[in-house]
């Protein structure tokens, strides 16, 4: 028999990556950039200016004018261009200086960094690649069927600056079965991950604390049949789409929850989330909007629970796992593909990997705890929805 090593384990903090992830990053709702003014966005360790040209197309450039460094986001939109507040230089969405009103001609090298943009499902994305390559055709953001047809409510949208933390913390949540109980007040009964290429999926089914607290028998290991069912996929490093179904008796609410982020500096990021809800026959627009707002509020409270942990937790490169935990190391192996040059992406990072967690023991233990608490006179607070995926 091998002797068990009983020396205390040491946390290896490691270092946050020195570069920002390659991929599409959502900057927010496209309509919020369409008010005729230039907008400043602090991201990727720099500042961007985003505006809509007269033709309605959204553009993104480095915010600092290459002439004398003025901040273009304090300037104005002139036709399709953005004009610098300092000396009026006008820049086009392609990064070229289009005009200098007081000069006979534009210097031939008057070019700044233009960010490739994409508008999809009402969101604006920019492509970030430290190597400077354009986005490959097959790396994109899916279109949501029925979006924009009136079948779904409009996006709710909230943002939150998370400081002294790194996006890896939020991505780790993809495989973190147990935190859904401790942070998000859900009882996961089915939990599975699939990684393949630049995508990472989480299947989550679960029930509410209230239901578990009744002592009713809970079936584990089945994706179908629970009150919450969620299929959530990261399309690249930062844009998580969660197709959610919450059942309340006979009624099922279908929604799409977006959780996304972009790095601001090496140790801060902006977290954004929003939801659209599929129309329920018989409910008017105002009621539907109320449902969406209520769900967003609950989701926001869930994120605050995450943030409170992130603010105090140690960065840890060598998590100590038990058999009921999800595949944290393999998730990070998947995630690392976005932090190396394309030529250095290894097969291990992108090969398909599946991991189905055994939730039997967890559900048993948590239910016992909840039933005991209810009998002692402190049943769980009722919550209308849990927050899978994150």
């Amino acid at each position, binding site marked *: 028999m091998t002797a068990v090593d009983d020396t205390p384990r040491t946390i290896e903090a*490691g*270092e946050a*990556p*020195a*570069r920002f992830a390659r991929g599409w990053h959502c900057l927010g709702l496209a309509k919020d950039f369409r008010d005729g003014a230039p907008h400043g966005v602090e991201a990727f360790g720099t500042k961007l200016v985003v505006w809509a040209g007269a033709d309605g197309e959204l553009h993104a450039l480095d915010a600092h004018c290459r002439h004398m460094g003025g901040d273009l986001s304090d300037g104005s939109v002139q036709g399709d261009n953005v004009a610098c507040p300092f000396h009026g230089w006008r820049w086009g969405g392609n990064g070229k200086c289009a005009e200098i009103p007081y000069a006979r001609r534009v210097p031939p090298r008057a070019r700044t960094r233009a960010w490739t943009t994409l508008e999809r499902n009402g969101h604006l994305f920019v492509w970030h690649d430290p190597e400077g390559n354009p986005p490959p055709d097959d790396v994109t953001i*899916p279109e949501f069927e029925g979006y924009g047809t009136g079948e779904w409510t409009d996006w709710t949208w909230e943002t939150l600056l998370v400081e002294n933390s790194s996006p890896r913390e939020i991505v780790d949540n993809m495989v973190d079965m147990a935190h859904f109980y401790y942070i998000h007040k859900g009882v996961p009964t089915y939990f*599975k991950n*699939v*990684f*393949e*290429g630049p*995508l*990472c*999926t989480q*299947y989550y089914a679960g029930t509410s604390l209230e239901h578990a607290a009744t002592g009713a028998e809970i079936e*584990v*290991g089945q*994706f179908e049949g629970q009150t919450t069912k969620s*299929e959530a*996929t990261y399309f690249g490093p930062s844009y998580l789409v969660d197709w959610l179904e919450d059942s309340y008796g006979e009624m099922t609410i279908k929604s799409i929850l977006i959780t996304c982020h972009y790095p601001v500096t090496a140790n801060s990021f902006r977290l954004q989330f929003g939801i659209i809800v599929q129309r329920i026959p018989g409910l008017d627009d105002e009621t539907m909007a109320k449902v969406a707002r209520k769900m967003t509020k609950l989701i926001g409270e869930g994120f605050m629970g995450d943030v409170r942990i992130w603010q105090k937790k140690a960065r840890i*490169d*060598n998590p100590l*796992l038990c*058999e009921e935990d999800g*595949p*944290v*190391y393999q998730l*990070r*192996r998947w995630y*690392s593909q976005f*932090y*190396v040059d394309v030529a250095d992406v290894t*097969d291990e990072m992108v*090969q*398909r*990997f*599946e*991991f*189905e*967690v*055994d*939730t*039997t023991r967890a559900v048993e233990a948590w239910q016992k705890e909840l039933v005991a608490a209810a009998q002692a006179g402190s049943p769980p607070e009722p919550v209308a929805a849990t927050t899978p995926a994150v």
Partner: protein
Amino acid sequence: MRPLRLGADDEPVLHDVTCGRCGTTVGVRKNSLAQTTVQWRGDTSSCEELAARRAAGEHTARVSRCEALRASIEAAVEAGVVQVVE
């Protein structure tokens, strides 16, 4: 970012399982009857089920599993080829 190191206790021993339908071989570990790890090698183009879903325009990262492979894994567990860690 430093190269990712998988700790010894996090690097599971995988057993080879070959799918009875298409012959694709994957690495499998079972920590319990209800837990399953499947590590594919190479791409998934040899899997008929995933290839069909991809041809239909789906992302295979959004397909939970190949049912034929699942059946082969269950058969391998029953036959004792894949031992369940208990």
